[in-house]
C-alpha cells in the first residue's frame, strides 16, 4: 500500500517550480519572436532569408530534415524494443513517444515555412501529383503524426484514469480533462485485451511507416541530379542518421527530466547503460554509411563530385563537416564504448553532442551540394555564391526548435512521464493494491 503511494507521488505530474516557469517563459518568448519574423517573411517574401537562386534551400530544409530524423526515435525505441520484448524500455518509452510526436508535428510545420506561397498550401491536395517526392511527404508525414499520436495515447489510457482519480479532490478541472481523455478506462479484461492488441498493431505499423518516412526524406534529395544528393546510399544513410539523432535526443531529454523530476529510482544507471549501448549501435551503423557516402566515392569521383567532396573535407565547409563527424559521431562513439562513458552525466553530454552534430550534419547535406552545380555560377551577385542563414532564418528556426521543446515541456508537465500503471505492474505492486488501481 505504502509502496504504491510513493510510486504515485513520485510519478504524478507536478506543477512547474521556478526553473520550469522560467524555462517555459523563455520558450514562449523565442516562439513569439520567431512568429513575428515569419510574418515579416510572408509580407516581404523570402528575400529576407539568405537563400537565393543557387542556395535555393537553406536551414528551413535542413531543420526539417533534422526534425524528421529525430522523430524516428518513436519507431526505434518504442516499437522495436517493444516487439523484441526488451523490458528495460518501460521508463523511457513515454519520453521517446513525446519527442517523436513533437518532432514530427514540427517537421510538418517547418516545411511550410520554406514554401514561397504558403497561401497555396491546398494546391498540394487539389493538384497533387503522385510522382513528386513532395506528394509522398504530404502523405507520409500526416500518417506518421497520426501513428505517433496513437502510440503515445493508447498506452496512456490506464494512467489517465489513475490521474482522474488522483486529481478528483485536488483539481476537479484537471480530473475532468483526464477523465475525458481516459475514454472510460476501467481496466477490465476486455479493455486491456483491446488496448494490448491496438498497441501491438500500431507498434508493428509504425516501423515500416517510420522507415518509409526517413527514406522519402532521403529521396527528396536523391531524386535530383545534384552532386552529393544523387546517391543510392541516401535512404539507408538517412535511416541510420535518424537512429542516431533520435536516440541522442532521447538521452538528453531523459537526463533532464530525470534530474528535474527526481526520478533516479525509476530511471537508473542501468537504463543509461542500456541506452548508451543502443546509441553505440546507432553510431556504428551511421559510421558505416558515412564511409560509404564520403570516403569510398573519393576513389572514382568525377571532377564535379571531387570538387564537392574536397569542399567538404578540406575546403569551405571543412569546419562544419568535421565538427559534425567528430563531435556528432566519432567522439560519442568512443566515449560510449567505455562503461564510465555510459553514466548519466557523460551520457547527457554525449546526447547533446549528438543532437547538435546531427543538426549541423543536415546543414552540411543540404547547403554545399546546392552551391556546387554542374554549370558555373555566373552572372549573379557575389553574395549568391555563398550561403549562411540570415537573422530571419535563425529567429524562425530557433522558434521551431523552441516550439518542439515547448510541446515536450507541456506534455512532460501534464502526463505521467514514467508509465505509472506499467511500472507498478512490473514492480509487482499492483496485485496487492487492486482497489487503488480500479
Amino acid at each position, binding site marked *: 500500500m505504502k509502496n504504491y503511494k510513493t510510486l504515485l507521488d513520485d510519478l504524478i505530474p507536478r506543477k512547474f517550480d521556478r526553473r520550469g516557469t522560467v524555462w517555459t517563459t523563455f520558450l514562449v518568448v523565442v516562439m513569439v519572436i520567431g512568429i513575428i519574423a515569419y510574418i515579416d517573411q510572408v509580407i516581404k517574401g*523570402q528575400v529576407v532569408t539568405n537563400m537565393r537562386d543557387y542556395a535555393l534551400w537553406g536551414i528551413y530544409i535542413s531543420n526539417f530534415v533534422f526534425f524528421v530524423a529525430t522523430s524516428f526515435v518513436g519507431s526505434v525505441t518504442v516499437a522495436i524494443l517493444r516487439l523484441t520484448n526488451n523490458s528495460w524500455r518501460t521508463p523511457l518509452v513515454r519520453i521517446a513517444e513525446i519527442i517523436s510526436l513533437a518532432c514530427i508535428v514540427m517537421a510538418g510545420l517547418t516545411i511550410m515555412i520554406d514554401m514561397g506561397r504558403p497561401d497555396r498550401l491546398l494546391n498540394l491536395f487539389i493538384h497533387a501529383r503522385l510522382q513528386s517526392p513532395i506528394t509522398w511527404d504530404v502523405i507520409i508525414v500526416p500518417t506518421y503524426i497520426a501513428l505517433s499520436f496513437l502510440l503515445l495515447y493508447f498506452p496512456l489510457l490506464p494512467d489517465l484514469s489513475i490521474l482522474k482519480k488522483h486529481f478528483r479532490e485536488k483539481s476537479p478541472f484537471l480530473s475532468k480533462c483526464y477523465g475525458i481523455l481516459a475514454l472510460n478506462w476501467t481496466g477490465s479484461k476486455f479493455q486491456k485485451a483491446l488496448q494490448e492488441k491496438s498497441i501491438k498493431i500500431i507498434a508493428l505499423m509504425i516501423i515500416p511507416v517510420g522507415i518509409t518516412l526517413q527514406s522519402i526524406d532521403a529521396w527528396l534529395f536523391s531524386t535530383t541530379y545534384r552532386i552529393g544528393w544523387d546517391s543510392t546510399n541516401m535512404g539507408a544513410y538517412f535511416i541510420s542518421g535518424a537512429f542516431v539523432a533520435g536516440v541522442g535526443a532521447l538521452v538528453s531529454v531523459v537526463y533532464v527530466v530525470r534530474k528535474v523530476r527526481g526520478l533516479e529510482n525509476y530511471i537508473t544507471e542501468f537504463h543509461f547503460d542500456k541506452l548508451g549501448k543502443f546509441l553505440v549501435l546507432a553510431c556504428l551503423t551511421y559510421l558505416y554509411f558515412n564511409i560509404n557516402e564520403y570516403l569510398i566515392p573519393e576513389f572514382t569521383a568525377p571532377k564535379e563530385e571531387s570538387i564537392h567532396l574536397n569542399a567538404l573535407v578540406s575546403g569551405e565547409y571543412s569546419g562544419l563537416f568535421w565538427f559534425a563527424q567528430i563531435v556528432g559521431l566519432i567522439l560519442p562513439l568512443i566515449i560510449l564504448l567505455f562503461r564510465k562513458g555510459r553514466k548519466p552525466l557523460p551520457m547527457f553530454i554525449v546526447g547533446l553532442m549528438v543532437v547538435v552534430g546531427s543538426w549541423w550534419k543536415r546543414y552540411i547535406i543540404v547547403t554545399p551540394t546546392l552551391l556546387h552545380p554542374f554549370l558555373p555560377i555566373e552572372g549573379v551577385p557575389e553574395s549568391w555564391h555563398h550561403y549562411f542563414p540570415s537573422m530571419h532564418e535563425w529567429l524562425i528556426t530557433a522558434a521551431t526548435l523552441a516550439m518542439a521543446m515547448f510541446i515536450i515541456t507541456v506534455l512532460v508537465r501534464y502526463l505521467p512521464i514514467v508509465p505509472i500503471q506499467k511500472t507498478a505492474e512490473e514492480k509487482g505492486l499492483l496485485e496487492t493494491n487492486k482497489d487503488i488501481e480500479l
Partner: protein
Amino acid sequence: MANDNKNSRRKFLDKGIKFGLITALGGIGLSKIPSKLDAKPKNLSGDKMELMTTDGTLIQVDSSEVIEVAHSEDHDKKYNVREGIPNRKFVMVIDLAKCKNALKCVSACNKHHYITGENAWLKVHKMQESKDTAPYWMPRTCMHCDQPACVAVCPVDATFKRRDGLVLIDNERCIGCRFCMAACPYSIRVFNWSEPNQGEIKMTMDHDGHSSPDYAGLPSVKGTPDKCDFCPHTIKNGELPHCVTACPNGVFYFGDKYEDTVTNGDETLRFSKLLVDKAGYRLMEGLGTEPSVYYLPPVNRLVDFKDGLENYKKFESVETPE
C-alpha cells in the same frame, strides 16, 4: 452472446457492402440504356443532302443526320497554353563557333521578359573544359527537356511539358517549394524572392490580356520561379524568340523539328543535316534529360575569344536601371 452479436453485425456489413455494389453497378447500367436507345434515328426529315466523303465519292445523307464536327471549331486558332501549338516540336541550335559574348541576347531577353531580379533567364557562360583546351562562350537557355527533371518533381503540376516541346510554369498554381530548381541539372531557374516590381509593365500586360497563365508565366509572381520560356508569345504569332532576333552574330537557330528546319533569321537550314555536318550535341546528354537545345561545337572560330572578355561580368547578368 457478445460474440454472436459481433458475428451477425459483420455478416450484415458484409452483405450490405455487396448489395450496395450490385445496386450501384445496376444503376450505372440502367442509366446507359436510354442513351443507347436514343442512338437510333427517331424521325427522319426526308430531306436528303449530298456530301462528299474524304475519298471523293458523293453520298446522300438525311439532313437530320448531319452534324457539324465538334473539333473543327477554331482548332488551330484556339491556343491552349498547357497544350501548346498543335503538331509542332520546337528546337533550338546554338552555334558556339559564332558566339563572342556580345550579350545582345541577354539584354533583349531581359527587356522583353521584364526581368527585374538579379539573375537573368538567359546567360552566357565562360567555359573551358580543361586548362589545355580552348575557352569559349556558351549561351545557355532553358533546355526544354523532353524528360524534364523539373516537371517530374513538381508536386502540383505547376510546371508542365507541352506537346510542342516547351516547358512552362503556371505561376498562379505554384506553391514555391523550389524543388524544380533543385532538380534542374542546368540550374536555369530563377526565383522571385520578393515582389517582382514589374510596375507599369504588369499593368500593360494585364490590359492586353497577357496575364498568366495565358501568357505562360508572365508577369512574374512573388514566391514562384521563372525561367527561359522559348518566347511562346512570339512563336504563337509566327515570330522568332527575342534572343534569336537580337543576336548580331547569328548564333541562335530556332525552328521546328517536324519541319526539320531551323533559322537564325538570316539563313534557314536543314536541322538534321546541320547536326550531322557540324557534330551537334546536347548538354549533359548522359543524364537522359533529352534537351530540345542543341549545341554546335566551338570550332573554326572567326572570332577571338578574348574579344568577348570586354563584356564579361562575373557578378551581373541583369543591368540595374540607373
